[in-house]
């Protein structure tokens, strides 16, 4: 038990500068809503934490697992729909709906994972993309999910911890921060766990991992399912944060790609990568969009965004974390 707690909370194996950086980060995030009064600034922060959370989940399969999954949006959708539908149909409190969303996401991932992991590389990436798009079309097609008209959660006034509806962004900030930290600590435990080592061993060399007695397919499937569960939690948050969801909003291809990109920009396979990536991409996108989105000539915001993406992909394929690691290695030498 004690060992478990240490594994969860300890970042002891990380170098000192990372620990200090992390502390500064946590401190800033904690006091953020008190020093920033701009509503948009707070909204950007919430979205950053949301995408950092998505990134942590995706990092498990895409970073540690090395499997390029372009269908994470479907899990976000399962979470969002489970929460929204249960609240609308049966008035079930938010916290009960999270495990349900997670359950469906894991169930579905488990069902498609075995055939999917027969595939490799681009075939796998496109298969994940296809599965996510099929689910999106089904949610539009079905009437019982509200179809294209989506699901609207009725507004509650005041502060409501059962349905997690608040009249101030500060509550949402700490709410998403709580979910984010839970996942961060989970990932902290995961990367040091036996399972975590297996996943990384499979990524680095499948044959070698198999010869060590690791069941390669099982390991991948497990990683895929856990990543799905983590994604669904973020989806549940989206449902109560925006109060209206439809398939185009919670399970589009763009979302899958954006999630993968945040991790990629930050540095896949590193615990800090998704956080760094989201901290760059989300504010960049949101501030560029807010400033340049309504100009006479359209598209400048996206062009700048695209250029930054191309430069990073060309100059530093291992993401920002790759740069930091390289700088550190140079210094320690």
């Amino acid at each position, binding site marked *: 038990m004690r060992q478990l707690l240490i594994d969860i909370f300890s970042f002891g194996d990380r170098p000192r500068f990372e620990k200090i950086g992390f502390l500064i980060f946590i401190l800033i995030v904690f006091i953020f809503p008190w020093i920033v009064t701009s509503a948009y600034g707070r909204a950007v922060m919430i979205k950053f934490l949301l995408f950092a959370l998505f990134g942590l989940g995706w990092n498990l399969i*895409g970073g540690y697992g090395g499997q*390029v999954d*372009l269908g994470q949006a479907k899990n976000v959708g399962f979470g969002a729909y489970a929460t929204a539908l249960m609240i609308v149909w049966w008035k079930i409190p938010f916290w009960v709906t999270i495990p349900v969303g997670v359950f469906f996401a894991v169930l579905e991932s488990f069902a498609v994972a075995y*055939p*999917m992991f*027969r*595939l*490799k*590389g*681009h*075939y796998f*990436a*496109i*298969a994940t*993309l*296809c*599965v996510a*798009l*099929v689910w999106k*079309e*089904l949610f*539009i*097609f079905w009437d019982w999910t509200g179809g294209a008209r989506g699901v609207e959660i009725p507004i509650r006034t005041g502060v409501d911890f059962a349905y997690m509806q608040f009249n101030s962004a500060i509550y949402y900030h700490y709410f998403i921060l709580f979910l984010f930290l839970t996942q961060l600590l989970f990932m902290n435990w995961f990367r040091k766990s036996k399972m975590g080592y297996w996943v990384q061993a499979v990524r680095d060399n499948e044959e070698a991992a198999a010869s060590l007695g690791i069941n390669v397919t099982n390991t991948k499937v497990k990683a895929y399912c856990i990543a799905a569960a983590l994604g669904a939690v973020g989806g549940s948050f989206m449902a109560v944060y925006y109060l209206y969801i439809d398939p185009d909003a919670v399970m589009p*291809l763009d979302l899958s*790609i954006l999630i*993968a*990109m945040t*991790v*990629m*920009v930050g540095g*896949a396979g590193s615990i800090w990568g998704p956080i760094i990536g989201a901290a760059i991409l989300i504010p960049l996108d949101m501030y560029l969009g807010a400033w340049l989105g309504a100009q006479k*000539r*359209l*598209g*400048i915001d*996206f*062009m700048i*965004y*695209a*250029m*930054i*993406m*191309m430069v*990073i*992909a*060309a*100059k530093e*394929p*291992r993401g920002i974390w790759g740069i930091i690691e390289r700088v550190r290695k140079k210094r320690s030498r």
Partner: protein
Amino acid sequence: MELTVQLLVYGILMGLVFALIALGLSLIFGVMNIVNFAHGEFMMVGMYIAYLLSTYLPLDPLLSLPFAAGAGYLLGIVSYRLLIHHILRGPMVAQLFGTFGLMLFLRYLAMYIFTPDVRSIKEGILVGKTLSMGWINVDASKVFSAGVCLLAFAVIYWMIYRTKLGRALRATSIDSEAAKYMGIDTKGMNALAWGIGGATVALAGALLAHFYYVTPTVGMLFTLIAFATVALGGFGSIVGAFIAGIVIGLIMVISGQFVSELKFSFIYIVYFLVVVFRPRGLFGW
């Protein structure tokens, strides 16, 4: 019966265009193992060239085809030299990411220049002419496009399998390192693959512009269809892209008739089922 014939004809005509769109993607992948998200945007460029030449110059859209192909070729080469060449050494995610950036860039550059207006070609020998044969009424430009697609496939096939240049390309795709030691300019081959890929897809765009609308965001759906087509046929296989294009055209038209809302799902499901049993697509190696 009437229905069957109509669906078959519409499906095959559409499928041939999909096949031509997918051809370039397949070729590029075959040579250097990279998937290009900006593929549909290359097509969009071809469409705009056909539109601009036929609207602002007294030039029939048919005559714009070589210009579109030429522009696509240049765009392919330039993209390779400026971007793709640099991202090739990165992992697969970085490659996807880089071409995704290229896609956004081209799309919003078009948005910046041409505004988001939806346009289409109004004048042309084939534009808006309908051919009637028994049960079937079909747009003349679709029939013509299908013919050009067949021709383009024949030319590319001949080029890859019957010429010296094609042998060098194939050598590069089988083993780039070995090809380099054999004295083949692999970088040149890569650029060439991008050039041909861009030219064929821009050609498809110029053909499509005859009966389709032109707008900066037109590319994405075609990119997805092209992904499914190429993966279904097997990455790098020319014959595979051809067959898969027709299969996808048929699925799309048939499911559009019965459950239109789910028509893309059927494509993705067919892809999924095929690759689960043949993990390298129908004709992949």
